[in-house]
């Protein structure tokens, strides 16, 4: 029996067979169609119905696009050219394109400024969004807010520079005092920043002409630019604020806890549009007549507060999902509260919260069109107000709203795709 296996076993193959294409009956487009579209009578009916509807939609919409008129100056001229044929009057987009992008009051010779700011945004956002990029790019991110402010609003470059200097000095003071205690560092940092900002007026006022671009007041912002400014600023401000609120809500310190709870519950209990009306209308009663507290700033504060409250609840969900052992383990390693949050708790909690945070961010970006009801001329405000009310374009709807869709969809879809990619990147637990 012992020699049974010493002899070669003839019926066991020792070389791999070559891969072969599947038989014609099991592959190829015909089989695919058969298997996926005409699999049984029920699916066949559904497929035929779907083809019919697609045909109806395409054949209905195609002439509208194909016959579209792009070069006229009014709806009446469009109709003259079309002579009763189906066709879109896309001339409204070509004629009013700058207004859709920048609003109707942004000086046209300055359009390059927001455009540059827009493209810089990609460089500034990239290192935050993709951690494989060189960390040095974060410098661009740090500079970007000040640069973008200067580009879009104009004025002297010294103003944003001085604001940045104030923040840097505050940070330096913070790091110096942080050894004694976190709270002391924080207070010291804030005080230092405020002092620098207070002194700043004496420097920037006499030098207001230095490196100055033409100033554009907030009231003149409009179009998709306004949506974009509001979206970007409010998302990036509300994320840290929301995290702080979520942590505050879990705090053991009673006053902080209740401030956060009241803030979150109050803001979440009020519709955004109400907050915007407060920002626009009611504040006007409280402020003395003639004063003009920057409208965009008011709106940014309101939208940021609103989305911060939502993000706080999303993050709280992430915090609650973490086992208590994580915090205890961090404590047993000797980490203090700030360290354990920064190194152990938040990275895990935020990872869990990504879908929720992105949900809020996409919703917030779309909610920026609500500012059109307080007579700000964002993309929707431009369409609803000045463009549709002009004598030339009164009566053009589909073309304009389609354009609005095409403005918003790619961005919202992009955000959602990014978040899915990020989730896959961070899925360390289940790999």
């Amino acid at each position, binding site marked *: 029996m012992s020699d049974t296996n010493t002899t070669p076993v003839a019926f066991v193959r020792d070389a791999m067979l070559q891969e072969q294409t599947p038989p014609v009956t099991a592959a190829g487009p015909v089989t695919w169609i058969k298997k996926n579209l005409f699999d049984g009578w029920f699916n066949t009916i559904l497929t035929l119905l779907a083809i019919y509807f697609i045909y109806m939609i395409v054949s209905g919409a195609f002439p509208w696009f194909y016959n579209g008129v792009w070069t006229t100056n009014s709806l009446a001229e469009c109709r003259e050219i079309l002579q009763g044929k189906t066709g879109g009057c896309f001339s409204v987009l070509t004629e009013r394109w700058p207004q859709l992008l920048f609003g109707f009051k942004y000086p046209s010779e300055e359009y390059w400024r927001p455009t540059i700011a827009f493209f810089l945004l990609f460089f500034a956002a990239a290192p935050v969004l993709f951690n494989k990029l060189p960390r040095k790019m974060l410098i661009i991110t740090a500079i970007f807010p000040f640069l973008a402010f200067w580009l879009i609003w104009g004025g002297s470059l010294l103003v944003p520079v001085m604001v940045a200097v104030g923040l840097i000095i505050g940070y330096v003071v913070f790091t110096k005092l942080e050894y004694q205690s976190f709270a002391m560092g924080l207070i010291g940092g804030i005080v230092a920043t405020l002092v620098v900002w207070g002194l700043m007026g004496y420097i920037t006022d006499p030098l207001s002409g230095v490196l100055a671009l033409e100033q554009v007041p907030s009231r003149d912002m409009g179009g998709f630019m306004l949506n974009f400014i509001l979206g970007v600023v409010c998302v990036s401000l509300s994320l840290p604020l929301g995290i702080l609120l979520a942590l505050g809500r879990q705090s053991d310190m009673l006053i902080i806890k209740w401030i956060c709870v009241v803030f979150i519950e109050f803001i979440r209990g009020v519709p955004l549009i109400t907050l915007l009306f407060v920002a626009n209308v009611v504040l006007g009663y409280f402020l003395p*007549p003639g004063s003009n507290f920057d409208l965009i700033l008011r709106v940014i504060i309101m939208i940021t507060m609103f989305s911060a409250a939502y993000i706080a609840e999303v993050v709280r969900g992430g915090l609650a999902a973490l086992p208590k052992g994580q915090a205890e383990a961090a404590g047993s390693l000797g980490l203090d509260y700030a360290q354990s949050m920064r190194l152990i708790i938040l990275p895990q909690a935020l990872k869990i919260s990504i879908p929720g945070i992105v949900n809020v961010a996409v919703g917030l970006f779309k909610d920026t069109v609500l500012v059109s009801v307080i*007579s700000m001329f964002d993309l929707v405000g431009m369409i*609803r107000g000045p463009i549709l009310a*002009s004598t030339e374009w009164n009566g053009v709807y589909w073309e304009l709203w389609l354009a609005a869709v095409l403005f918003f969809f790619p961005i919202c879809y992009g955000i959602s795709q990014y978040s899915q990619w990020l989730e896959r990147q961070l899925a360390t637990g289940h790999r």
Partner: protein
Amino acid sequence: MKKSVFFGALTVAALAAGAAAAGTLDDVKARGKLNCGVTTGLVGFAAPDANGEWQGFDVGVCRAVAAAVLGDPSAVEFVPTTGKTRFTALASGEIDMLARNTTWTFSRDVDLKFEFVGVNYYDGQGFMVPKALGVSSAKELDGATVCIQTGTTTELNLADYFRTNNISYEPVPIETNAEAQPLYLEGACDVYTTDASGLAATRAAFENPADHVVLPEIISKEPLGPLVRHGDSEWGDVVRWSLNALIAAEELGVTSANIADMAAAAGNNPEINRLLGTEGTLGEMLGLDADWAKKAIMAGGNYGEIFEKNIGENTPIGLGRGLNAQWTDGGLLYVPPFR
């Protein structure tokens, strides 16, 4: 920047609190700009054109006032307001005057504490229906669905009219005139009701205007006019007489074409002389330059010229003068004498 804006705002606020007592006319002169509330967009009455310049019939009033006070028709900051924000904007002092096709009513004048300084357009609420509906009178509209703008007097008038005629209707609330058009054309409502001027403008933009009729009934009086806050009569006088100057100029035959000649020296007609400041001290009484009315008229022409340019029969909107003709032509425009 946040902080500095905030502190800046506080400073401005403190300064303004001191200045607010000084009266709107002085505020406007000190500021060098007139803050004029207009609509966010209404065909023919106010809308920015492709270059971002505001155009329209109400805009013409703003420009005339700015020209009278500041000597420059472009020294206007147009503040767009919606039907809901217009009154708070005026009451809070954000704007100096409101020229936003606003109907002069008792409660707005008395209860909301505004001062209507005159009427620049006599309007009335009407109905538009598709011809296919086969309706020839508003009284046949029992059970109809009606597209109606919310927050306006038209909404209230409609309720009153249907109640007095004891017929029912179903309202379809809409926000702006621009929203009403597609809804009406798609058949979401049988009837569209708004001011007759708005109906004409809307119908003119249709692909087949002939398929729609405006019913003969005009169910309300809608005197549209500029308004200011209560309690500052000097400023109210300035706005009132700037508007009156435009209307009087048409009555007296003063146009943007001949005004330069007429104002060069005192002519034979003493009223024209007083209006244009070549005689008398009317400007001084208002606290303005002697040639205030001349500047106001030169801003966009007299009332008739502004009318023809923005909403008259040669524009796509094609409104006839109707009630808005001079009293000498059978209309309602009748300004007190410049004396």
